[in-house]
């Protein structure tokens, strides 16, 4: 039986009428057209589908959308403001942390959550946190460098 769900996604209210078995990932991609959140495994192992749910970074493939009625969701599409990349996004671009880019949205969301909890992480903390985001292209070197480059609170005004 379908269920009514109200989500706040990237600041927009979205009224959905969905089957209860559908994942948040599925709904974001297919109902709302937010294809920046990627499906890499559907089993919570790769992190490509990471989004923020009420301020926490979560694998959206593991969440049932119907459970999140009333939640505030931020996806990678909601990170840049007024077309201006977030400092973390800029750093990932400039440090070469992006190759095929499929893992990138998940990395952005997870690293942002880390920086919110811990504005000045050391390398081991960045690596531990990002260990839930698989990347097959970069060996993580430049991703970690990019995150470390902005361990200053002043860069974290957004999100």
């Amino acid at each position, binding site marked *: 039986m379908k269920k009514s769900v109200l989500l706040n996604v990237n600041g927009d209210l979205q009224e959905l009428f969905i089957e209860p078995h559908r994942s948040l990932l599925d709904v974001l*991609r297919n109902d709302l057209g*937010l*294809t*920046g*959140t*990627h*499906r*890499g*495994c*559907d*089993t919570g*192992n*790769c992190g*490509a589908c990471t989004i923020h749910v009420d301020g926490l970074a979560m694998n959206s493939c593991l969440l049932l959308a119907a459970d999140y009625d009333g939640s505030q969701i931020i*996806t*990678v*599409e909601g*990170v*840049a403001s007024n077309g201006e*990349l977030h400092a973390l*996004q800029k750093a*990932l*671009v*400039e*440090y*070469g942390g*992006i*190759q*095929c*880019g*499929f*893992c*990138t*949205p998940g990395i*952005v969301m997870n690293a942002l959550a880390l920086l919110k909890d811990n504005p000045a992480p*050391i*390398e*081991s*903390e*960045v*690596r*531990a946190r*990002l*260990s*839930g*985001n*698989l*990347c*097959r*292209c*970069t*060996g*993580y*070197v*430049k*991703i*970690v460098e990019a995150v470390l480059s902005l361990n200053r609170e002043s860069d974290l005004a957004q999100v």
Partner: protein
Amino acid sequence: MNHPTSLIGRRIPKLDAPDKVMGRAVYGHDVRLPGMLHGKILYSAHPHAQVIRVDTSRAERLSGVKAVLTAADNPPTKFGYGKDNIPFKSIARSMRDEIAGVVAVDPDTAEEALTLIEVEYRLLPAVFSPETALGENAPLIHPSRKSNLFQTYSYAHGDLSEGERESKVIVEAQFNLPYVTHACMETSVVVAQFDLHERLTLWSTTQIPFLLQRDLSEALGIPGNKIRIIQTAIGGAFGRGLDIYPYEPIAALMAKKSGKPVRLAFSRREEFIAGPTRQPVVVKARAGAKSEGSLTFRDVHAVLDIGAYVSWGSVTPLVMMETTASLYRVPHVRFEADCVYTNNLITGAMRGYGNPQSTFFVETMMDRLAEALSMDPVEFRLLNANLPNTTTPQGLVITSCGMKECLQAVAAVADRSGKDVPDRGSLLEEHPGAQDSFNASGSSIARRSGSPKIKRGIGFATTLNVGGGARIYRSDGCGATVKVDDFGHVTLITGSTEIGQGSETILAQIVAETLGVKVEDVAVVNSDTDVKPWDVGVHASRTTFIAGNAAAIAATEARKQIFETASEIFGVPAEQLFAADGVVCSTIPGTTSKAKEVSIAKVVRQRHFREGGTIVIGEGWYDPPTQLVDKHTYKGNISAAYGFGAQMAEVEVDTETGQVRVLRLACANDVGRAINPMAVEGQIEGGAQMGLGYALTEELIVENGQVLNPDFHHYRLFTAADMPHIETIIVETDDPGGPFGAKGVGEMGGTPTAAAVANAVYDAIGIRMTELPMTPERVLAAIIEKGEEK
């Protein structure tokens, strides 16, 4: 004459990175067409079985199902490298064989319909190893062939018996290398649509758009000009996209039968089971050296399990052969390989294409020889290293060669062994609160290595890889067009393919540098076979060299046209002009100071707005001066340049658990010239991640034809926390044939890693690991076995 090379060697961010970081790039999974339906495939329940009956009636009656397909829907033709494959099978030869397909309004409905298809099988005896497949009375996997032996390779140079006679030491070993897989973060996906003129458009993640047109035309029995391939943003490739696979013609058949566009996307589980793999190899190798250290011979026999269907993966012995014959200077070599059909997984091309396998056995044998001679492993390698401006007995014409420099560079890092590695430990295991202790330089290592159960070692390995294309097909060419518009905007239309490696940025740099414009003024179009000129495909680390040369030729032609007109404007000979930042300048003879300036945009407008006007458009085609190897001797110069590299691994082995922890991996690569050092480093660092997985964690466990670990929880990729400290060293040798001196680097990063790690493990615990991956179980078993021998 151009401005001093201002754009070459710059760390320019990837042109498509802003779109990717904002989630705006459109991957295959994101393609959505009006009326699009979703396809799913039913795979065989058995590794070898005849399909007696398929009942699709219940599936067809399910609401939302638009079409169900079986072998009855197959075109009459076969496809693939061995022409042994078809879309849907009536005889299943592996558990990844497609039996039926469903097209439905959404993926869930299609999935549900699969469960309603009833298949009756008659089981056939199956073979799961080359050994049994070649045994007497083994069931034939393709009965039209007389044997399961698909192909053999036999190469030799010199005289093996002379090599043996000359040897002071001879070493011998057997190696066992596993199935691994590309594990692209994006699973395989394709969208197929026929237009009203029966023309097929395929949105694809392929690496070979033009060859795929031809392959699909064979598979579907339609002319190649009726097929258009559009490449989406590609979420990882690494060789996965170097072949045609059944799902591609299946998607087309689904679109045809349903009359609607169809998306067929693999689940991750499907990707592990039905996607291609790197073929497992069993290798017997012998090698010798003289007392003063020079190599005498190598004798290698490799047996490859190629699975139930042949792909280009069965050609990987060519690369294993190259490593065996030409990595270091070896006067006497024999290499033999057998490619054998089994009822196992499909195997294919994967980054390095045979080279990670062969470098593992060649380089661990090198270590054995050095030890047998009591020589330093680096000195031994330097003594035998490949040299510039030489031709190997196999016929490889080595021009630039920085192999010694690479070895010396990583040896210099080894001299700092244990001194400055920030030991991160295994963060997943340690308490996150205890982070502080990880950062002190060296102190934690000293603490750890003080423990008697932890042994530390260092190991080396090198690599030789084609770096100037690879003439696998009769053409190794790539086309390019450079057009300049009346705003000074430049478009490079290249045949090459962007798979994340950064080719579009490198090519834009080459074009911008050649034309004298800014990189941001260059747009790269590279994704549509209806638009772009022909190219072999993105493989063999060839794009920078081949597509780079083609782009440079096209840009040079466009520059000539611009200078022609500018020369008329200024009344100055074209030879005295140069261009930079979108402006053509005249020089005063004998000086380099500017005299007159005109924007390229204005020059182009001048060409447009006049009688008998013309456009600025340059065309380039580059096919390197190389040879197909001889069909019988396998000799010939397959590439216009060769890349070299060396790695040093520093490891700790826990002798109580068998856990191998890599603390540091130093990677030096001779790339000719780094057009974009950041992109070069990215290739090496990413290659290292794959190489470390091959060494330590990655293995598709296959039993009776079935994958037992088809998910990321059990197929372990290195995570950010697992990675060691990577030191990347770029060695530049300025290759005479490469664009601005550059050679390819795409595959080299991961090729020597497993050998370097295995050699380091030996250095630590005195055990030669011959089976990959070196899991704690395997290492501990070897430690126990060694203990029992004593």
